[in-house]
């Protein structure tokens, strides 16, 4: 089973995770820039983070045979902090980088006027730089947030078919699908979607334009959820081709809209004994 996790925050994960992901079939992933749990207080802090997503993290991933790409943006939560909003002016010079396959994650958190501005501005940037956009739907007041998101997309120059709406569930899938955008589902332990509910959604909705991700980060989450969905799909009678479509071809098609996917990472060589790269050098 080949797996592309279209939304996972590897900066917050360990090398054990990379190893386990490779063993379960993960060969490619996209790491969206997001809120780090601790609020940032200056644009420079974002730039170091963006540099890590374009430098150190792809280097780490490649050691485990996994192709790493990222999406960059000012996240909705910090879009509300005037100390952070100058990030928007510097974003263009990052959006031209080879490893950037979308603008994201953008969207709403508390649906404030500052979030309106950040969302509209960044959808515009995506259109300008010929990138798709990765838009998450809010955790609170999700359906209303989704409707407002779809309206802002409709007003932008970005084609809805170049937008991925993420963190969907049973109550939002219909409205999201009608918008013409791609449909993302984050599978978590305990909360939000689980793998069996995901299988039910796939049964009723079908596999078209559906992406499944672990959204694993610094919170309680599981980087192997993509594989667990694949196994649950097979157990429920879906074919291997269905699984490949959802876990590989759909994310490749969506992020491939950027023209920047490079999926040919060599398999990890058994590291020379004593080579200390895996411990981070010294």
């Amino acid at each position, binding site marked *: 089973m080949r797996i592309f996790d279209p939304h996972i925050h590897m900066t917050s994960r360990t090398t054990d995770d990379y190893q386990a992901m490779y063993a379960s079939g993960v060969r490619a992933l996209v790491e969206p820039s997001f809120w780090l749990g601790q609020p940032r207080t200056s644009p420079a802090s974002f730039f170091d983070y963006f*540099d890590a997503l*374009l*430098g*150190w993290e*792809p*280097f780490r991933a490649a050691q485990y045979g996994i192709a790493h790409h990222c999406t960059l943006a000012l996240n909705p939560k910090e879009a509300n902090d005037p100390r952070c909003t100058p990030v928007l002016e510097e974003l263009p*010079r990052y959006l*031209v*980088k*080879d*490893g950037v396959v979308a603008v994201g994650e953008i969207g709403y958190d508390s649906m404030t006027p500052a979030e309106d501005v950040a969302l509209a501005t960044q959808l515009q940037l995506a259109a300008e730089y010929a990138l798709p956009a990765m838009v998450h739907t809010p955790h609170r007041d999700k359906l209303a947030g989704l409707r407002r998101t779809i309206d802002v997309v409709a007003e932008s120059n970005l084609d809805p078919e170049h937008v991925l709406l993420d963190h969907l569930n049973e109550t939002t899938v219909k409205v999201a699908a009608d918008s013409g955008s791609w449909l993302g589902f984050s599978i978590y332990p305990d909360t939000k979607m689980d793998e069996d509910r995901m299988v039910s959604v796939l049964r009723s909705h079908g596999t078209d334009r559906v992406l499944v991700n672990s959204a694993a980060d610094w919170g309680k989450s599981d980087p192997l959820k993509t594989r667990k969905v694949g196994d649950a799909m097979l157990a429920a009678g879906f074919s291997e081709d269905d699984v490949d479509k959802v876990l590989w071809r759909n994310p490749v098609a969506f992020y491939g809209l950027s*023209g*920047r996917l*490079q999926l040919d990472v060599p398999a990890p060589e058994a*590291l*020379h*004994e*004593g*080579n*200390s*790269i895996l411990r*981070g*050098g*010294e």
Partner: protein
Amino acid sequence: MNRESIDGRLDSAAVAWLDQALAEAAEAADEPDNVAVPRWQLRFAAAGRHCGQENADAVRTLLLRRAAADVGTLTRLYQQGAAAERRAVLLALPDLVPGPEALPLVEDALRTNDTRLVEAAVGPYAAGHLDPHAWRHAVLKCLFTGVPVAAVADAERRAHGDAELARMLADYASERTAAGRSVPADLHRVLIMTGEES
């Protein structure tokens, strides 16, 4: 690598892209840029996806040479670059910067643990300009991170007669041995170069 040998590895769309990029870079060389981000620098960032990652080093260093990038431009491209762009700047230094002014970039790269950067940092520019202490640590860093010592430019000349390097290598070897770990073959290679083997 020169233009002809790069072209042999590119498809026709990439060759056309590179033609345009080089023309823009040559223009910038004639007439220093007055726009915020010159077009050839956007192409410098995008080289991997247009010419293939396997050709990106060659294409990017060619662009830097054609634009006759000065230390200020190289520093900005390095600081604002993704890892692959930083690597290209490091590789271009010996052709573009005669003096030691670009050493801070080499030192920055040597502080990372990214072997792509460390490898590019220990080329001829480092051989020509790094002071003995920093150069010894660069060699040791290669041994620690698994960058082949073959990547260290001019290693024979710089290592020769360096008793302090020999001592550092011997200490590292005994630390490895004490831990029950093997001593990298490259360590012996450098130790022989010092001519200070005991």
